[in-house]
């Protein structure tokens, strides 16, 4: 039986084929997806911020790109995934209120910094980013099919696409 597993904001989960991992309404948040196509084990994180080392409160590892990736790898290994098989995909990191950048540049390019940090953190773990759908000024929902490894992205303005 195929189970659809929801991932909330600042949350992460790992599972196995034929289950589906999904997260809804990503804005500047970033969906990070890891997949072992051989073992058909996958993980998804819905992160909010780029770097766990830049904050005081580090309680929730799923909230930050770098710590979430490490945590996901650990969970996926327990399900039989091999680290050397892993492929990464990233989705989200939008800039929703396009005019705000001008009035507060530092605080509001978080989406972009999430993207950059996630790419870097994946590279550090020697995981290749095989595809991505990032940036823009619109929200995204994603569905990750662990049987096929395909990621379906839903948007309001731009319809559905698959990466």
């Amino acid at each position, binding site marked *: 039986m195929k189970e659809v597993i929801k991932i909330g*904001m*600042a949350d992460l989960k790992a599972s196995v084929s034929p289950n589906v991992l999904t997260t*809804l*309404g*990503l*804005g*500047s*948040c970033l969906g990070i997806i890891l997949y072992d196509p051989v073992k058909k084990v996958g993980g998804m994180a819905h992160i*909010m*911020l780029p770097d766990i080392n830049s*904050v005081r409160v580090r309680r929730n590892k799923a909230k930050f790109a770098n710590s979430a990736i490490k945590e996901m790898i650990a969970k996926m290994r327990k399900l039989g995934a091999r680290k050397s098989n892993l492929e990464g995909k990233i989705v989200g990191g*939008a*800039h*929703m*209120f*396009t*005019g*705000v950048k001008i*009035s*507060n540049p530092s*605080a*509001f390019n*978080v*989406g972009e910094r999430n993207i950059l940090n996630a790419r870097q953190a994946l590279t550090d773990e020697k995981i290749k980013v095989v595809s991505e759908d990032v940036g823009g*000024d*619109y*929200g*995204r*929902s994603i569905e990750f099919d662990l049987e096929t490894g395909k990621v379906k992205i*839903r948007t*309001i*303005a731009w319809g559905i696409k698959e990466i």
Partner: protein
Amino acid sequence: MSKDVKLSEGQLDALRELGGIGAGNAATALSQLLNKRVMMTVPKIDVVPVEKVPLLMGQPETLVVGVYLRILGDVLGSMLLTFPRDSAFALADVLAGRKIGATKILSDMDRSALMETGTIVAGAYLNALSILTKRTLVPCTPNLAFDMMGAIVDYILIGLSRVVEYVIVLEVEFVEADTKVKGFFFILPDPESLKIIMKAIGAEE
């Protein structure tokens, strides 16, 4: 500040009063703008941790219009006014003087009108906060987004989650003749600013 803000009945009253004064100011301004009687009420006002905001607003994929602006001056922070799609469209109809239900897509004019509403509501509350705290608060230009609730709210939460811990949430209702439009208005003060506001309503940390 501790994990949960426990407000006494007296402090909640002070917040409710702030809610009422802001709504009164906003209703007056909207009525003048539209040249017809518009009422605004605040059925509920509360102080909640930032993480709880998405729960208040329902499903992450619900379509909402969000009008967001920064507050500068002595009290730093931002404000966000949100309406579910249908409410936003009804409000656009009221603002443009159309029959309710006429709006099918938001035109640039509708977007401007909704941003104007955001500015008016924000201005009304800035004024009320200014009197309450005896400080100067200045709004920046508003921005509008029409998208999934989750995407709009996460943007605000992320930008703020490093600095803002608590949010003042107002459930707002605009009434014009037979039309009732419901939305949420969020006051998102930086921690220092929250202290100023809490002190002004007599809340202890």
